[in-house]
Structures are given as C-alpha cells and as structure tokens.
C-alpha cells in the first residue's frame, strides 16, 4: 500500500472520528466523554470479535454503540422520550428490512449506496417521532442491530446456517456510519426547520450558540 493510499485511509478515518465525536457529544456525554467513546469505538473495532453461539459481535462496532444507546435511554427526560427511542428503533428495523429487499441488489442497478440509506431512514423516522438527535442515533444503532438479528433468525428458519454478524466492521461498520448519518441528518433538518421557524429577526448569537432558540440554556 502506497503512502498516498495510507494517507487517504487515515484522512477518511479522521473524518469519521471527528464526525463521530461531534455526534456523540449530543448523547449526554461531555466533550471528553465523547472523545473517549469514539476512541473506544475505534480501538474496540481492532479487538477480535466475540462469538456467542450463532452470534458474532465486535466491541467497537456493536457493543460500545449499543451501550451508548442504553445509557441515553436510561437517562431519558421522560417516559415519552424513552418509548420514542424504543419505538423508533423497532420501526427503523422494519424500514431497513424493507429497504434491503426493495432496493436493487445488483451492483449496476444500485442508485444510492445502501450503507448510507439506513442512517437517512433512521434520521427521518426519529425526527418524525420526536425531532430528536438522540432518538436518531438510537433508531439507527438499535434498528440495524435488531434488523441484523431478525435476518439471522430468518436465515436459520430457511435452513441457512449463517453466523449472525453484528457490527463486525468495527468503526467502519454500517451501525456506526448509520448512527453518525442519522444524527447529522436530524441535526441538519432540525437546524433548518428551527432556523425557518425562528427567523432572522430574533437571532441572538453568543459563542456560536443561539441564545433564544430551543437549544440554548
């Protein structure tokens, strides 16, 4: 592998790392906590996978993101937020299952990369349910995990003896990528709608945060 190729790979990883840190920052984690969580996803991705019966999972690609979801759900402001997270994950799992089947599978036929579309689906579903960045992350991570478990069970029912892999792509797995895309989409849509609703007349900016918006303290 040439130096240029390694540089490109490192640059791509840094972009994912940076975006991931910004996303985890919205998960009730401090700046440092978000950095540590992202580092755990990166390092955990390099640790060999764990196999439990027919399921194989990765620490960075599955365990850490799922633990973050559990942490966010446990600290939900209200039972409504908690159930919005759970319902969003279940609906996203169904949506991903449907998308898997309805999107073209042949490489020439693909019009939008499937690995990007899961996060978009999760972001939209979470936003419709509760205009929530945290909900978007939970929908994407738990939705994909549930969907992969369901597909694994369906394979077994069909007699296909295939190991169920959850997040074994580590930091580059669809679970992590989708979680990031979902939050960024919810953030983008949220900021746009809030900006339109707020209008320019009422803006007050201090240190980059909007003082009179719903995001300000």
């Amino acid at each position: 592998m040439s130096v240029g190729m390694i540089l490109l790979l490192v640059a791509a990883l840094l972009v994912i790392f940076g975006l991931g840190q910004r996303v985890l920052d919205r998960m009730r984690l401090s700046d440092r906590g978000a950095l540590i969580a992202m580092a755990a996803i990166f390092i955990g991705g390099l640790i060999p996978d764990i196999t439990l019966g027919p399921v194989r999972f990765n620490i960075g690609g599955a365990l850490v993101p799922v633990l973050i979801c559990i942490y966010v759900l446990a600290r939900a402001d209200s039972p409504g937020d908690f159930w919005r997270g759970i319902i969003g994950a279940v609906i996203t799992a169904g949506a991903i299952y449907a998308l898997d089947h309805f999107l073209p599978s042949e490489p020439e036929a693909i019009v939008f990369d499937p690995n990007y579309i899961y996060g978009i689906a999760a972001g939209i579903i979470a936003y419709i349910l509760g205009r929530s960045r945290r909900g978007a992350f939970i929908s994407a991570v738990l939705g994909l995990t549930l969907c992969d478990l369901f597909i694994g069970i369906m394979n077994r029912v069909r007699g296909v003896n295939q190991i169920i892999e959850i997040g074994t792509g580590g930091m580059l797995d669809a679970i992590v990528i989708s979680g990031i895309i979902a939050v960024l989409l919810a953030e983008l849509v949220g900021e746009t709608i809030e900006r339109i609703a707020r209008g320019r007349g009422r803006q007050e900016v201090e240190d980059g945060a909007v003082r009179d918006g719903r995001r300000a303290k």
Partner: protein
Amino acid sequence: MIKRVAILLLCCLTFVLAPSRALGEDDDWNDIGDNYYTVKLESGEALFTVGAAVYVDDQYISGDNKRYVVTQVDAENYTATARYDSDEEMPAIDWLKPAFAPVSSDTSGGSGDRLIAIYATHTDESYVPSDGTSSEDDGGGILDVADALKSAFEKQGVTAVIDTTSHLPHDSGAYRRSRQTAVSLMKKMPDALIDVHRDGIPSAEEYLTEVEGVDTTQVRLLVGRSNQNSEANKEFAKSIKAVADEQYPGLIKDIFIGKGTYNQDLTPNAILLEFGTHTTSKERAIKATDMIATSMTSVLYGSGAADGVGSNTGSKAAVQSGNSGVGKGILFLVIFVVVAALAYAFLATGSGKGMMEKLKRNTSELTGGLLGKKPDNDRGGDES
C-alpha cells in the same frame, strides 16, 4: 405521538407485506424484474445491455476506451440512448515488457509480501449451464470462480486470501454484511481487495469471447462513484484494463461506473469483477481468472513479477497513477468537511459572525480545548 407511530408503522407494513417478490430469495430481483435495458448509440447501434435501470448522465467506458454518457431513457421499452463523450485517457503502460511474463506453473504458494484479498458479496451467485441454477444458498459457483482466482494469483507468486463468508439473503443488504468481511480482510493490509461477482443479464453472447485461442468469458470492471476513493478506484480499474488490453485483448468487457460504493471506500485498490453472466458456463468464467490475475499482478507488482525477474517499474507506474486519484480523494475529503462545516454553522446561526464563533467552539470541543475557542460554559446535553 401515537398518530405518528401509527403512520410510520403503516408505511413499514405496506413495504414489508407488499405482494411482491420482496420476501422471496429470488436471485435476480432488481428494480426492473427480469427485464434488461439495451443502451444504444444515437445511430441506433447497440452499445451494451444491462440488467438494471439506466439513468440520464450514467457513464460507461467501453471496451475500446470510449466514454459514453446516457442522454435519454425510454423506461417503457427498456432502452436508452447514449452519446459518445470522449476518448478515455488510459494510463501509460510503456513499462510493460513486450513479452510479458507467462503464467508460472509453480503453485507452491505465494510471496509473503504480496497479498491480495478476495471475497464475494453475493455468495449464492451461480452459473445455470454448470450449476443448474442461478442461485445456491449453500454457496454458488461464484465461489469456485473466486477460488480459481486465488489459485491464479498464487501461480503468479502472489499470496491470496479468500473469505467465503455467506452474506445471504441476496439483497441490497448483502453489501452491509459483506462490508464486515471486507473490513476483516483489510486488517491483513492487502495490496488489493477484490469482490467477485457474475452479471445477471440473460444474454450469454454479451460475455462470450475468445482470447488467444481460449474460449472464455469477458470480465467487467465495476467501480463506484459514491466515496472518497472513487477517482483512485477508477485509476486502478483503468490500469488493469490498459494492461489486460495489451496482454489479453478482448478480455475486459468494459468499465462500468456505478452509483454505489461496493465497499470501495475501504481502499483505493478495490475493484469489483464480474466474470460472465448466469447464462455462461462456470468453466468459461474460470478460464478468465488466470488472465485477469496475470494482468493485475503486472499492475500491482510490475512487469515480469511472476518469474521474479521483472522490475517494479509497473508497480511504480501504477502507484503514480493511483496517487493522482488518491490526491483527488484527499482533496474531496477536505472540501467536503470544510463546506459541510461552514454550511452547518451558517445554517445554525444565520450570520457570518455566528458561523465563525460556532466553528471555533466546535473545533475546541473536538480537540479537547487544544484548538479553537474554548466555550465559556459546557452546553453538552442540552439538546434533545
């Protein structure tokens, strides 16, 4: 909230329970069913057929290195019109020895520092004339082709690792599952990552050919354009085609520039190879593996790499060619990050001053206070 949940659930159920082939395991399901598009030139001459929907602005590099762009699509009749765009500039291959290295008979194993990784996203793909079906859940004929490709590389003195992990069902989610296999292979730091497929068009004639007296199938090279490596991937594909055109004229059918990623974001030297279609025989497809392995070995390790006497000139040329794509990839990433950050910050604050303040704040948070402006008070956790 109950109303929203009900609507979302209804949408999902409509998708999942729709009376279609969605729940089936049919191999060649795609958005146009069993049909396929014929893409023609404005003169009416057929250019190629493809078992997928075609869209305006789709690009295609033909076997004779001409770039075509789709200008019109007739969805009712499954036809499209393409116009000639330009001659594709192919990489110089003057480093290639006139009499390139013949395939070695040594099958004792490869070189430790030359590594190729092979996998198949659609492990069920099969060849009807040889396997009796187009899809086999327990591992289709495509795995035999992948195995033959591994052996072909080893004949060239290159170590090849193959991962035959199944990614069923055969749907678009297979790329999500094969990504895990690809990432696992990438941990071995291979020089190239190959995803082996076969096409799904019904016409075998599209792929049947004779190269140097050998009846074989042509090979389609497929690269994606939805990732930061797309330019480097394309340069790699063009290098393979340029060398193969010299060594085995007619072996490479074309370069298809698809809209997906195909896990090619994992390395600039990733390629998707399609050996024939489901109506060609597997044996013919296997015959193409020796040739493509020879050409790829030349691209990656230089002319005469198989017998150990060649220089690494080809390798250097390929690296230089690839580096131009890598440079574009890094530039793409930098532009993407800067534009996205600026757009987001402006959207969130609505003013130039606010945008700069937000960027400083985010930079500080991202770097743990090393760079940017440290926020006066931590507002983490104040968003829903």
